């Protein structure tokens, strides 16, 4: 990939399609790396969450299974993790730090403008605030 290979790669995933597309994209482009798929359970910071914590942890587990199933590559190690935070982008960056990730890799999802407005566009925030390489991979257009 580069002179300094990305050994530990943090891969944020948000839903099933994302897990599939991103999983394929990283499997095609990395060898000998540890992939750390992360799902962030968005917290309300003192109000009841939109969905229960356990429910989203189960959801995360489903995503990780899909991710692992797509990555059928013996040289890659997959270490799923779950993050919790009010701000999704900030949580991803914190976990990247904790996990000593060399890079954060994602496949952009097409999001409508108003949706980005509502949710604060995680991708943009990630890029603006990052303290380590962020790699944006094209997904498979057919998905």
């Amino acid at each position, binding site marked *: 990939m580069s002179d300094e290979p990305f050994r530990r790669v943090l891969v944020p995933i*948000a*839903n*099933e*399609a*994302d897990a599939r597309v991103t999983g394929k994209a990283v499997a095609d482009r990395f060898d000998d790396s540890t992939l750390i798929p992360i799902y962030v*359970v*968005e*917290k*309300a*910071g*003192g*109000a*009841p*969450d*939109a*969905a*229960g*914590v*356990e*429910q*989203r*942890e*189960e*959801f*995360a*587990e489903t995503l*990780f*299974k899909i991710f692992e199933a797509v990555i*059928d590559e*013996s040289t890659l*190690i997959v270490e*799923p*993790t*779950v*993050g*919790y*935070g*009010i701000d999704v982008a900030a949580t991803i960056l914190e976990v990247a730090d904790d996990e000593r990730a060399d890079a954060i890799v994602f496949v952009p999802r097409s*999001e409508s403008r108003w*949706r980005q407005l*509502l949710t604060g566009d995680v991708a943009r925030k990630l890029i603006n605030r990052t303290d380590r390489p962020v790699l944006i991979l094209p997904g498979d257009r057919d998905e």
Partner: protein
Amino acid sequence: MSDEELAKDLGLIPAMTIGIGTMIGAGIFVLPGEAAQGTGPIVVISFLVGGLIAMVNALSVSELGTAMPKAGGAYYYVNRALGPLFGSISGLGDWLGLAFASAFYTIGFGRYLGELVELPSILFLSNVQVGAIVAGAVFVGVNYIGAKETGGVQTIIVSILLAILGIFTIAGWFAFDWGTVSGSGGYTPFGTAELLPATGLVFVSFLGYAKIATVGEEMKNPGRNLPIAIVGSVAIVTVLYGILVTIMLGVVPWPDLDLEAPVAQATEVAFPGNYAGAAAVIMALGALLATASSANASILASARINFAMGRDKIVNDWLNEIHPRFATPYRSIIVTGGLILVFVILMGGDVKVLAEAASVLHLIVYALMNAALIVFRETEHPDYDPDFTVPLYPIVPILGFVLSLGLIYFMDTTSQILAVVFIVGAVLWYVLYARYRTPIQGVLGEYVRDRSEEMPDIAVSAAEAASPDATAPYNVMVPVSNPRTEDELVALGCTMANQKGGVVHAVHVVQVPDQTSLDYVADQIERIDDESDQLFENARAVAAEYDVDIETHTVVSHRSLEEVVDSAERLNADTVVMGWSPSRPWTSGRTGGALDELTTNLPCDFLVFKDRGFDPSRVLVPTAGGPDSDLSAEAAKALRDVHGADVSILHVVDEDTDRAKGTAFLGTWADDHGLGNATLLVETDGNVEGAIERAANDHTMVVLGATRKGLLSRLVGGSLVFDVVDEVDCSVLLAERPAKRSLRERLFGRPGVEASTETEEGEPKMESGT
């Protein structure tokens, strides 16, 4: 901070505001007019009695909530304790009760909205119903997209509400007149008999506190904060209702109290002329905030209950899919929203019906919940360890049970009929749907069944009848592929199944090379079917001899061993019985880490048979204690009970001086594992393998517990460590009991209540067989 702490970000004050915010909407803003006109001034006492009943139940919720801070609240406790029949009643009751309550809240919202703006009436719908439908749709929409409500907002809303009500209290105090309260006919114009029916009506005002328990999993320090928030919020609103309703009755004579928007009316009277209009508007806005907050919290709580029920398969988990973009349980929210709108449309004309329907269903749930608490305590369930305990046990839960059901007795006939219809419906739901799906068995059922000797027959048969079908079978899976060894394996599987009254699943795993596409194989399915049929016919014949039920499955896969593990998981197998030979092509497919992970995380017990003939007449069990040899003991016991095998147990110690200790250990071990009449053998040369080989000469089968390192992974890796398997002349049955850790547990490191019953046995001091 650990992840677990990060997941719990609900502090005491926000938790309490959930309770207060949910409760404050209805009682004060909607019902005083309705309740007072049927009861007279003693309606204040009705509110206080409602608060008292709520408080008794709040104590019970607190205890259960600190023992099990899980999503689902009351449903979860009842299902665990009383089993899925009552679980279905409480889950559906809580859910529908919330939908009725939400419909009631949105009607309240519609009424106060009508005070502020002109609402049209459409078709047969009144203007209030139109306002309620719009409001309901907005609440559902907000929850659907999960628009972010932060703790700050919730606290601010409740603070504003308390401030508005505080100002009203002060202004009302000056306009207050005891003469107005007693008015015409004194305090009890309709007699005291109306007191409790009115309590039934206004009880809907106290439903919010239990919602705190449904979000218990998100609370910081739930052991302390949950009881304080629940009991505290009930105490606060009870006092508040007492004061506010008294003041209202002292400001406006009760026969004149407005049915639609009593608080706005009282405000207008209480404030001096030139402020009256503005004050009434502010009060109406406060009422909108309050009813919206109640409805919103109820919709959120419904989704948690749906999730908990879906996980236990009482309802279809389809309901609980998470939205791919919004990360909300959107289907559950839509279905609940649909119910709310239906209730508003059909019953919104009479707010009393909605209020009583919500009350009556919750009262049923609360009664069951108190029973659940008593069951947990009386059965001394090992997982039940509440941080908060109700005072004066068992008086408080018994009181909660009696008061909850007792209040139903005083309610409208319509509500009582609804309660009966609902219970019949919920029981039918369980009998026709949930019974076949849910794997949960309640603590009570287990307790009665475990003591079937001491318990009266009627209790045992009732427990059997009410227990779910899905838990009944003990599933033994036998992968069959080789007609030569098949019979022995099926016989072993039947032996295990026979002893535990279980079912054998014969699974034919058709392995095809990686290069062959599974689609291609599907075309060849006829040929495979013939092969399967042959295998299954033999299997059925064996099963018939053992009088064991058998089911057959054919699976086509690239990877045979992984398929075995997957199938075991799919079939919910308790034990897998499989054959082993060194030439088995187990290593095809992927190697290394993934396989290691697979085989060290077995989904169930594995018995691997090295076949040198199936002769269970003299069985040798070497043991050093530990979880794997528990499984060897079970297998040996099955062989003894089904085939009359003579069982010997072998233990090896290092020194001759340890012989007595070894014998003592074996005696205890044999008794503990139901092998009291076995022959005890103690060897003292410290050479385990040698001892087993020597002893095996006198036996026809050796049952060997694997070490904790992972039997299957060693077999698969080709580095068979159990030299002893090759050295002895008789058949060997290798037993491995998994360290039960699912992906979920690896990730989150906190097994559920059920899983935590697995005691972490200490590592055996000496491994058998190595």
